[in-house]
């Protein structure tokens, strides 16, 4: 019976398809910014594997279409591919399609030129991003050459751009400056990595529209454009990792309204849970973590405006490896001399439980944006955003009867108001002026580390850009005033208000005159006011076993940077060379000082914030070569030198040389499996030999003598890692399911990384396999 119905159905379907392949899919394309028709877009129907280009009137058409579901992808230079879904039942499909250049039109002005980029920026998107799914933002960004991570154990990754991090880099989450307690080395960015459709890193202060203090660079976390499809669509992401048995589940649904033209929304959520991580030889006790995030985006696109409301909440709980939380310097020396954690820490079994020491962070963001296109061809945009970051750090309890309260509890609220006017383009020239105002309030409970304070920052900027076929020139000027007031509860000490102000400027020139080659040179002069922790921190840093003291007399850092970028691209080759040189005067850093601070737990090294003149120079090189359409190889080199000019020695805690080589093979499409690829990646990280030769830290030598060094331990040895990944796409119900499998540290290499704060205590994670699924619907 069943078979009969099935056959009947088949016959019906077959008849239908023969009989009714008479429909068409067509549309007209216009540019949301300029209202002009788009003439150079290509349109693909994935199910039929048919593509076409639109004509000079922006019109395209596919004929002889059978009833069914179709995915239409519109590709246009400088835009994200636009995906549409057409259901053909009994009539043809026709739509007027408006193409938006990017969700944040601001970014377009400075980051991208039409043909070549003026600014040295690198992106992580599509398949590269898919292979990092499940990992945190900081860990994902390590894929970009020149970006490394300041690590605290296996869960906390903080991005470093060419040696600079924390308050020297700026993260723009959804167009809003991420403001939390970003000064701390163990404070990772509080952003759900799944909300990013693209991660962009701008190295150096090559754009001034986001803030003057980003001496190191800017990270843009950009979400996907809202759908234009009035049917429900979305995706489910699943990822499972073998090492810490981490499971990640992410879902998003979106829909454009049928009733209100131009209105669309998206809801998304991510849940993540990991247990103890494992080094090649032992479990890392209390290294589990969990994360729970939700976000909501509402957008209304009208003929002349785009309005957007975005809300997100991120919360996590991260266990801190038990063996890293030490009582005093004796414990630290014991941990270092033993070379591995003691048996009572090592000999544990896997669990998901998270105990003290741990940290809990919650970050909320509410953003309202309005973009208005003007009749003269220009536009203005206003963004109002509020953020609240609540960080709690829990040390180990002294007694089981001790209070459950955290030791450190910091709440920081920030309001940002940004306004920008983009002048209409006139004879190859574009320009924008903007105003930014920020207000911040910090309040703490329990132990003092940084005081309560309020802060206001006002900035104005102007950017002008010239662009023709061969050359792009960009100049920017910015003025900022930072005012810190109401500094209270500083354990009895009284501090007055503080104010810093100055100009920043930059200039960039890029040319494509030479065949296959583009060359760019950028120069900038920027500054950064000392951060709150650099001026006022006063307390014990657990795990680091040191007492950190701020200095209220610090002055602002001043940075002059030049960088150059060379890109050579042919069918076979793609070579990208970036060289930079930065002079940072009054560079603020932590210096071990003498004598140590005496406490009831013995003498702790005292680290004081000091200023020096620093010089950073280095190069990042990427070269890829396509042997055939299927087979390609890539090599990456990242080298950095950082020098303390005053003390005539190297700066501490800087990334060591890093080299990578990879081979990528793309297989032909099979019947079910499409876009198949396999990739092997080899990483060599050199030992950091450029460290200060001497310091004030007492180190007991094996022969019993005491020497004074800049660190408790010499930087760990060089290491080699082997990673691999494979990926494929399976078509299922008219949608492509993406499957990616990755293998990290395949050889289960035992190693320690210099930039991991836990290098004193334990090895890095051993081999880690993962499977990731992306199921769109």
């Amino acid at each position, binding site marked *: 019976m069943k078979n009969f119905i099935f056959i009947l159905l088949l016959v019906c379907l077959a008849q239908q398809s023969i009989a009714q392949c008479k429909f068409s899919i067509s549309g007209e394309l216009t540019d949301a910014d300029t209202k002009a028709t788009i003439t150079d877009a290509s349109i693909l129907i994935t199910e039929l594997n048919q593509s076409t280009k639109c004509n000079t009137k922006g019109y395209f058409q596919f004929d002889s279409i059978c009833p069914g579901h179709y995915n239409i992808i519109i590709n246009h230079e400088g835009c994200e591919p636009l995906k549409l879904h057409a259901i053909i039942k009994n009539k043809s499909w026709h739509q007027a399609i408006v193409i938006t250049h990017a969700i944040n039109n601001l970014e377009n002005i400075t980051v991208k030129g039409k043909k070549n980029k003026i600014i040295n920026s690198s992106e992580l998107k599509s398949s590269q991003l898919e292979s990092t799914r499940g990992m945190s933002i900081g860990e994902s960004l390590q894929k970009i050459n020149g970006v490394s991570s300041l690590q605290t154990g296996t869960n906390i990754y903080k991005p470093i751009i060419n040696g600079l991090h924390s308050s020297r880099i700026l993260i723009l989450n959804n167009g809003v400056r991420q403001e939390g307690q970003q000064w701390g080395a163990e404070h990772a960015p509080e952003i759900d990595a799944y909300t990013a459709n693209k991660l962009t890193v701008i190295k150096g202060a090559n754009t001034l529209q986001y803030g003057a203090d980003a001496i190191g660079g800017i990270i843009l976390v950009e979400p996907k454009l809202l759908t234009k499809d009035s049917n*429900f669509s*979305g*995706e*489910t992401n699943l990822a499972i990792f073998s090492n810490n048995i981490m499971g990640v*589940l*992410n*879902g*998003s*649904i979106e829909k454009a309204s049928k009733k209100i033209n131009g209105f669309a929304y998206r*809801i*998304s*959520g*991510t*849940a993540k849970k990991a247990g103890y991580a494992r080094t090649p030889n032992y479990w890392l006790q209390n290294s589990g973590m969990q994360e*729970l*995030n*939700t976000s909501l985006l509402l957008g209304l696109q009208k003929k002349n405006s785009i309005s957007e409301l975005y809300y997100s*909440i991120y*919360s996590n709980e991260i266990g801190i490896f038990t063996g890293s939380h*030490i*009582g*005093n310097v*004796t*414990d630290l020396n*014991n941990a270092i001399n033993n070379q591995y954690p*003691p048996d*009572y820490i090592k000999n544990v079994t896997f669990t998901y439980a998270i105990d003290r020491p741990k940290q809990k962070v*919650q970050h909320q963001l509410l953003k309202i944006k309005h973009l208005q296109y003007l009749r003269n061809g220009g536009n203005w945009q206003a963004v109002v955003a509020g953020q609240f970051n*609540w960080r709690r750090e829990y*040390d*180990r*309890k*002294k*007694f*089981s*009867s*001790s*209070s*459950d*309260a955290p030791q450190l509890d910091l*709440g920081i609220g920030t309001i940002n108001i940004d306004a920008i006017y983009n002048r209409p383009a006139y004879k190859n020239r574009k320009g924008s002026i903007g105003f930014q105002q920020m207000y911040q309030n910090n309040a703490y409970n*329990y*132990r003092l580390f940084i005081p309560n304070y309020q802060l206001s920052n006002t900035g104005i900027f102007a950017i002008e850009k010239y662009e023709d076929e061969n050359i792009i020139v960009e100049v920017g000027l910015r003025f900022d005033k930072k005012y810190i007031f109401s500094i209270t509860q500083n*354990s009895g000490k009284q501090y007055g208000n503080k104010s810093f102000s100055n100009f920043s400027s930059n200039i960039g020139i890029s040319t494509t005159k030479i065949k296959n080659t583009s060359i760019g040179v950028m120069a900038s002069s920027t500054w950064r006011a000392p951060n709150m922790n650099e001026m006022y921190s*006063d*307390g*014990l840093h657990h795990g680091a076993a040191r*007492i950190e*003291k701020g200095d209220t007399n610090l002055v602002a850092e001043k940075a002059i940077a030049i960088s150059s970028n060379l890109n050579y691209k042919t069918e076979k080759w793609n070579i990208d060379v970036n060289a930079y040189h930065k002079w940072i005067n009054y560079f603020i850093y932590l210096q071990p000082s003498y004598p140590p*601070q*005496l*406490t*009831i*737990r*013995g*003498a*702790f090294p005292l680290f004081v914030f000091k200023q020096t003149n620093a010089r950073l120079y280095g190069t990042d090189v990427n070269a890829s070569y396509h042997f055939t359409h299927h087979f390609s190889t890539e090599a990456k080199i990242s080298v950095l030198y950082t020098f303390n000019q005053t003390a005539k020695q190297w700066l501490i805690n800087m990334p060591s040389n890093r080299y990578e080589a990879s081979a990528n093979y793309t297989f032909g499409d099979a019947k079910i499996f499409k876009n198949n690829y396999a990739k092997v990646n080899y990483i060599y990280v050199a030992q950091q030999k450029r460290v200060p030769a001497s310091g004030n830290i007492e180190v007991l030598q094996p022969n019993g003598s005491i020497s004074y060094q800049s660190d408790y331990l010499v930087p760990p040895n060089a290491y080699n890692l082997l990673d691999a990944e494979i990926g494929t796409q399976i078509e299922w*119900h008219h949608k492509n399911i993406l499957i990616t499998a990755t293998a990290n540290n395949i050889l289960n290499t035992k190693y320690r990384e210099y930039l991991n704060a836990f290098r004193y205590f334990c090895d890095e994670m051993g081999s880690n396999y993962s499977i990731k699924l992306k*199921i769109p*619907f």
Partner: protein
Amino acid sequence: MKTTKKIQLFSIIICASLTANLSSCKKPTSQNEEELITTIKVNLTDSATNQVNTFVFTDPDGDGGNNPIQFDTIKLKANTTYNCSLSILDESKTPVGNITDEIIAEGTDHQFYFTPSAGLNVSVGNLNTDNNGLQLGNTAKWTTSGNSNGRVQITLKHKPGIKAAGDAITVGDTDIELPNDGFYTIIQ
């Protein structure tokens, strides 16, 4: 088609439950602050005369901030036996917190160690024990012999769930370990 709908439903459930789960967004009402160990008092009672001498180390603002304000020299008579009892205090609070009681209550997780420096003629023994019969050491007996001087280090270790007989001093984390290798001690 049905399966697609199921995935849709699944995703909606995920998103909804995630939203619902974020209920712990409230700040807690004020909880007690953690105990801070600021002070150790060494009470030494001459077993013959019952005369009590107290020697103090105190850093009332805790780790960081100002340096310790009192670090006494222990003066002892030669060839004498003293009964030692320790009191551990939190003087950053008013009223002063007594931490000794908590250490005794959770004695199975704590242990004091006394380490006289070489050449100082004092030996420390008879440490009292916890509920499991393992050494605790908030009371002990100090026995001096000939005139000498040196240092006595007093260490408090926290060993939750890992305390065992004959533990080395390196086991656990350190709650107390005095600077400069301990109290300067003169026997005369």
